C-alpha cells in the first residue's frame, strides 16, 4: 500500500475518475493555473487541459449553478469550493436546484455532481471561514453528504461520489490535507452509506467523523489503559446514516458518546442521537452525550478556538459520565 497525504489521495481519486470518464470535469476558484488553493488539484491542469480543469471567477452561486446545469444535461462536474464556508453563497443552488431537481421534475433528471472542498476550524480563520456545514446539508432530502477522516477513505469515498448519480456534498477538513496514511493500491472504492469501525470495543461506543477521529482514537487508547474498551465508529456517510453499524454497536456497548466539531444545538450529533434513541432506546444504560464545539461563533484567538474543539480530556469526561465513573 502506498502512503499518501489526504490531498494526494483526493487528487488521485479525481485524476483516476477523469481518466475513466470524459464527462467528469473539475471547476472552481484557483483549481487550474494556481494548482488549487490547497493544492488538491496540483498538476491536473497540465494533465487534462483547460477544457476539463476550469478556473472560475469568484462567483460561487454562479459556478455552482453552472455545474448543476451541466449535470442536468449529462456531464459529471466536480465543483470545488475553496472552503465550504463560501458555499453559503451558493446555498440556494445546492439546496433548491441540485437536491430538488430530480424530485420536482418527477424523476426526469439525474444529478451527478460533487461539491467538494475544505471545511472546519482550521486555525485562527475566524467566524466566517471556519464553518462546519454538515448538519445544514444533512437535513436536505436528495443530497448525499460524505466526509472522510483518512486518506484511504478520502480516495475511496470521493471516487464513489463522482460515480454517484445524485448530488454529493463532500466535506474535507483543511487540517487533514497534509496528514498521511496508507491507501490501498489499484481500484479503491468506499461505498456510500457505510460507517467504518475504526477500533472495535465492547464497553462504550464513540461516534465521530472527520478531524475529531484522531482525538477520539487517542481517547480510546487512554480508556484502554484505564480498562475501558471503547469502540470507535467513523460515520464517513453523514447522509444516509449507517444505522445498522450504529445500532449494532450500541446494542453491544449500551453507551454512546458523539464527538463532533459541529455546534451543539441542532448540530449533527443531535440528529444522530435522536435516531439512536428512537431505534434502540431500551438498550441504552446512559443518556447519549455529545462532545461538540461551544455554542459561540468561532473566535480568532488561538486559545479560545482550541477550547471549543473536541479534545481527549473532554471525550474522557463524557465517557466517565456515561459509564458512571
Amino acid at each position, binding site marked *: 500500500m502506498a502512503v499518501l497525504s489526504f490531498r494526494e489521495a483526493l487528487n488521485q481519486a479525481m485524476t483516476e475518475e477523469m481518466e475513466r470518464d470524459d464527462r467528469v*470535469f473539475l471547476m472552481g476558484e484557483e483549481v487550474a493555473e494556481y494548482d488549487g488553493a490547497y493544492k488538491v488539484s496540483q498538476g491536473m491542469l497540465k494533465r487534462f487541459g483547460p*477544457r476539463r480543469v476550469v478556473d*472560475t*471567477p469568484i*462567483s460561487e*452561486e*454562479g*459556478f*455552482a*449553478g*453552472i*455545474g*448543476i*446545469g*451541466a*449535470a*442536468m*444535461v*449529462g*456531464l459529471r462536474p466536480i465543483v470545488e469550493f475553496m472552503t465550504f464556508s463560501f458555499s453559503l453563497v451558493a446555498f*440556494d*443552488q445546492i439546496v*433548491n*436546484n441540485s437536491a430538488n*431537481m*430530480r*424530485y*420536482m*421534475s*418527477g*424523476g*426526469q*433528471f*439525474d*444529478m451527478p455532481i460533487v461539491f467538494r472542498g475544505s471545511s472546519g476550524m482550521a486555525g485562527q480563520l475566524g467566524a466566517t471561514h471556519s464553518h462546519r456545514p454538515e448538519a445544514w446539508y*444533512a437535513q436536505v*432530502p*436528495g443530497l*448525499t453528504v460524505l466526509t472522510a477522516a483518512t486518506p484511504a477513505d478520502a480516495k475511496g469515498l470521493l471516487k464513489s461520489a463522482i460515480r*454517484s*448519480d*445524485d448530488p454529493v456534498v463532500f466535506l474535507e477538513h483543511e487540517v487533514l490535507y497534509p496528514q498521511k496514511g496508507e491507501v490501498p493500491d489499484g481500484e479503491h472504492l468506499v461505498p*456510500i*452509506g457505510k460507517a467504518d469501525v475504526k477500533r472495535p470495543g465492547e464497553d462504550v461506543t464513540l461516534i465521530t467523523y472527520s478531524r475529531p477521529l484522531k482525538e477520539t482514537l487517542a481517547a480510546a487508547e487512554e480508556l484502554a489503559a484505564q480498562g475501558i474498551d471503547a469502540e470507535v465508529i467513523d460515520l464517513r456517510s453523514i*447522509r*444516509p*446514516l449507517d444505522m445498522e453499524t450504529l445500532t449494532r454497536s450500541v446494542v453491544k456497548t449500551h453507551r454512546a458518546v458523539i464527538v463532533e466539531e459541529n455546534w451543539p444545538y441542532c448540530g449533527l450529533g443531535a*440528529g444522530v442521537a435522536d*435516531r439512536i434513541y428512537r431505534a434502540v432506546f431500551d438498550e441504552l444504560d446512559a443518556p447519549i452525550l455529545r462532545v461538540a464545539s461551544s455554542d459561540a461563533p468561532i473566535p480568532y484567538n488561538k486559545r479560545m478556538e482550541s477550547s471549543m474543539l473536541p479534545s481527549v480530556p473532554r471525550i474522557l469526561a463524557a465517557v466517565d459520565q456515561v459509564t458512571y465513573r
Partner: protein
Amino acid sequence: MASVQMEVEPIVDRTKALDWLRQMMLIRRFEERAEMLYQKGNKIGGFFHQYSGQEPVAVGSIGVLRENDWVVTAYRDHGHALIMGMPARVGMAELLGKATGCSKGKGGSMHFFDVKRGMLGGHAIVGSHIPLAAGFAFAAKYRGEDRVTLCYLGDGAINQGGVHEALNMAALWKLPVVYIIENNLYAMGTQLVRSSAVEDLTVRCAVPYGIPGHQVNGNDVEAMAKTTLEAVEHARAGEGPSVIEAGTYRYKGHSISDPATYRSRGELDEHMKKDPIIQYENVLRDRGWLDDDAIEAMLDEVKAEIEDAIEFAEDSEQPSLESLYEDVTAAPFIPQE
C-alpha cells in the same frame, strides 16, 4: 412601450404563421381555463402565474429553434412548456396535482418539466435558473454540440446577483445561450422604474459583459422570431451569448392572488386594445392567409384541446402517498426518519 409594428416582409411561410397564431391561442385558452379551475373549482392550489398577454415572446422565440435546442424559464412557465410540445393534458394534470402530470404532481404550476422535448423547467427561485442555463450551454460546448439554450427571465430577476455572475461567465467562455428578458414592466408589484437604476435593460445585462443586446417589441411574434434567430445564429456560430429585452405586458396580476392594484385600469385597457393575438390575426388576414371562418375553426380546435386536457386531468389518479419517497434520489432512497 412601442406600438406594434409587424414586419412588412413576412419571415415565415403561411403554415408556420398559422401555427404560431394557434400556439398563442392555445396558451391563452390554457391559462384562462386553468384560472377558472383555480378560482371557481378550487382544483388548483399554490402559486399560479398567468402568461396571458406575453404569448408572442415564447411563441416567436421558440419558433426559430431546432429540435434539440433547450429552453428554460422561470415560474411563469406554462406557455413555454406548451410551445416546446408538452401536451396540454400533461400540463393541466400537473396543475391538478395528478400522477399523470409532467412532474407527477410534485412540481405544480411553477415546475413544468418535459426534458425529452427540451423543456428544462419551470424554476421558481427568481434568477436561480440563469446559471443553470449557462450550465446547459457549457455542456453543449464541452461536448462540441451545436445546440443552443434559450433562457427566459423577468425584469425583476435582473436584480439578482447570480444572474450577473452567470452572464459574466457565459460571456467569458462564449457559451451558446440566449437570455430573453420578458420585460412586462412589473417585478411582482414593483414598477421597473422603482427597481432598476437604468431602464434600458440591455445596458444592465449586455453592455457590461461585452455581448450583443437587442431590444424588441415582444408583442410582435415575427419581430420576436427575427431577433431571436439572429441571437441564436450568433450563439450557434460560437460567438457566445446575447441578451434580448422583449417589451411585453401581462394582463393578470403577478400571481392569482394579486389584484394588481398598483396599475390603473386605463393602463391595462390600453394594452389589451393592442392584444397581440388579435393583432396577429389582423396581420394574417391582411396577407390573405386566413379569414374569419378559419379563425373560428382554429379557436374551436384550441377550445376542444383544452377541454380534453381538463377532462384528462380530472379523470387522472392522484399520486399514491407512497410516491412521496419516489424520485428523491437516483440511488435507492433511504428516508432519514
